[in-house]
């Protein structure tokens, strides 16, 4: 479903070229739950960003279904992120001035055309699914960290994404809340969602069907 071949990514730091990914190849099947593990600075987040199209690789090929994403113009990549791909981050990243419902509907608010009633219903259903139906009108600042992460997951649910990329989704949560979020991700995976998760928690990584370990920009197993 999603394949990366010989991906290379370098960053410039103080005029010095730092290789972050060195000819990395990954293959993710439809409906699979894959975790990416590694130490800080190993390149796991960069790999997730490349796979989710947030960052373009310097070289290599990234294929989604039959399309070579490396050849996609910016606009097509944006459309892909609006439809098939969803990303959740360690710090939840909701817009603080939008309500929970509006944050959930954010992917559909990108034009001046009003969001349809059907989408609003879907968003409410998504919030119900993650247990936040009664907090739809609240601002994210009034929610706990776990609740905010659930809003981010509801956002991914509403747009019927095929692949969910999660960058340390439990990183900023306490153990109990982290477990709840992982339970939710497992549930979604069991319903057919492809999940690619970066984590440095061995316990959570072991819940995935497959673990990719990365070290100094190279996959070690």
């Amino acid at each position: 479903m999603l394949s990366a071949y010989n991906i290379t990514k370098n960053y410039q730091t103080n005029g010095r070229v730092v290789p972050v990914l060195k000819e990395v190849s990954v293959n993710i099947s439809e409906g699979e739950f894959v975790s990416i593990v590694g130490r800080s600075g190993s390149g796991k987040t960069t790999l997730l960003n490349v796979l989710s199209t947030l960052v373009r690789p310097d070289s290599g090929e990234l294929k989604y279904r039959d399309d070579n994403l490396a050849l996609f113009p910016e606009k097509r990549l944006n459309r892909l992120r609006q439809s098939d791909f969803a990303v959740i981050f360690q710090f939840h990243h909701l817009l603080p001035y939008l309500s929970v419902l509006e944050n959930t509907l954010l992917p559909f608010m990108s034009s001046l055309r009003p969001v349809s009633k059907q989408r609003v219903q879907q968003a409410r259903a998504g919030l119900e699914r993650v247990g936040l139906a009664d907090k739809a009108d609240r601002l994210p600042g009034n929610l706990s960290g776990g609740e905010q992460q659930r809003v981010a997951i509801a956002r991914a649910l509403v747009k019927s994404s095929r692949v969910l990329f999660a960058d340390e989704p439990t990183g900023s949560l306490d153990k109990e809340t982290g477990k709840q979020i992982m339970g939710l991700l497992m549930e979604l995976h069991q319903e057919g969602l492809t999940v690619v998760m970066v984590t440095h928690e061995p316990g959570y990584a072991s819940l995935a069907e497959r673990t990719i370990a990365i070290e100094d920009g190279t996959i070690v197993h």
Partner: protein
Amino acid sequence: MNLFTIPLRNIRRRPSKTLLLLLVFSLGVMSIVALYQVSLVVGYSLEKKLTTFGANIVISPATEKLSVSYGGFHLGDMVFDVQELPEGKTSQAIRSIKLQDRIAAVAPKLVSMTKIGDTSIALVGVHWPEERGIKSYWAAANGRFPEKPDEILVGSQAASKLGMQVGDVVSIYGKNFSVSGILFKTGSDDDSVILVELGVLQTLLNRPDATSFIEVAALCAGCPIEDIVDQISMKLPNTEVKALQNVINQRMASVHFVQKLALSVSLVILVTAAAMIGLSMLSAVNERKKDIGILRSLGYGKSQVFMIFCLEAGFIGALAGFIGYVGGFGASFKALEYLALSEGAVPVFAVAHLLLASAVFALITIVAAVYPAWKGASVDPTTALVAL
């Protein structure tokens, strides 16, 4: 809920910052609107005052002119087929043009030559109220202005030529007239003529309703003088309608000076206010890199991020335009009252102008926000993600 919801909610997030920005921009708009309204009224009032210093349009009957020369000698120009303008019909036609509200005064005249003793002198028939209305600089050096039909006013040069004094009785076309006053030197043709009531002269000459030419004082602040001239020409096809460009240019220069001064000050205020909006948006871009990162991760393109910043600026601009226009309109009354400048003229409120002001100021703020918005849209997702 749509793209506009995002900037709208963000504005609500920081009410004090938004209010401050709105206040500053509204004050800017208010100053511009007040200055504009005051300059309009002052321009109108100034022009009205200047109108009393002379006419700016002359209407005369169409004539034929022939240049005569014989045997190599130039014998001068011959004017023939001279017609007269019927006073009533012509005055009525002038007063009925579309731009009739711009006509300040209509002063008809009948010119005739006569002899007093052995001296030839020009007689000019005028209507005293109209004439004095367009010639407020007239002053009687001796005596007073005529009040009765058998009184005349004599130009300074004509008085010395004829040896006339105030109180003298002169016979003109067999009728006795008393010299009620002698004009101060004006430096114009009025110095060498005798002025008499128009109706009296028409009767004496047995030319009822006749005039030689008509002087018109038109207000040109609101429209070009050419329009007034064209409209009078249409109404009076067999006449020659001439705009006295020197008079108009001098008059308009004074009006334009006031308006240009107001425009210059307005531009400075506008640029300052726009720069403030631009700076505020620029700092907003830096503060909201995280927001940009979230939006880009959700598939928002550069154009959509660009639009969010422009919509935010445009909203503030439109609101400031609305508040500023209403405030500026009110302030213009106070300013005119305080400066005692209005001379009876008042600013005119127009809903269309209010909407136009909102749209124009929205556009100005959008233009001011283009660079910050472009900067925000150009934030590389990778950089934005670092902010995450």
